């Protein structure tokens, strides 16, 4: 955070917290949408069936594993790209 005053740093941190909350909400919302879309298709009852609940639960677990795996790859690729840029 090069060349920022203490006050600027505090302001920046506040903004980043807001962004983080926003991003978490977007990820959570996409997860709900995706798991509901993929798992729920029977509207003859108003409660989730056992099959639907199971599918949703597996979808959530797999989505978290996906996010965690892609998070690792993203960090690696981003570091490699930054190193590449610095060389030029």
């Amino acid at each position, binding site marked *: 955070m090069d060349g920022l005053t203490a006050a600027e740093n505090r302001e920046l941190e506040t903004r980043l917290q807001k962004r983080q909350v926003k991003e978490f909400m977007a990820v*959570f919302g996409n997860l*709900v949408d995706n798991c509901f879309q993929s798992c729920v298709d029977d509207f003859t009852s108003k409660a989730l069936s056992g099959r639907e609940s199971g599918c949703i639960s597996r979808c959530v677990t797999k989505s978290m594993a996906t996010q965690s795996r892609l998070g690792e790859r993203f960090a690696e690729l981003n570091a490699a790209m930054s190193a590449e840029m610095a060389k030029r």
Partner: protein
Amino acid sequence: MFGLGRPQPTSAEKIAAIENELKVVAEMHSRMIKVCTSKCIDKAYREGELNKGEGVCLDRCSAKFFEAHQTISEQLQKEGAARGFGSM
């Protein structure tokens, strides 16, 4: 999430917290409209009124969406806590 140890929330923080809670609810509402429309409404639009089947489907879809939303929140809290994610 970050404010640990701070004495008490500032005005801006209190307002942001309330705003955020309402945003979560509003976003859930708009996601429900999107997903239940795609599940229940025939895209041919041969009539302007909701027919009985569509109406009943919307009622059940909204109940299932709420249930899914809640169980997913709970699962994320449990699994997320286990993995050291932020809770929601």
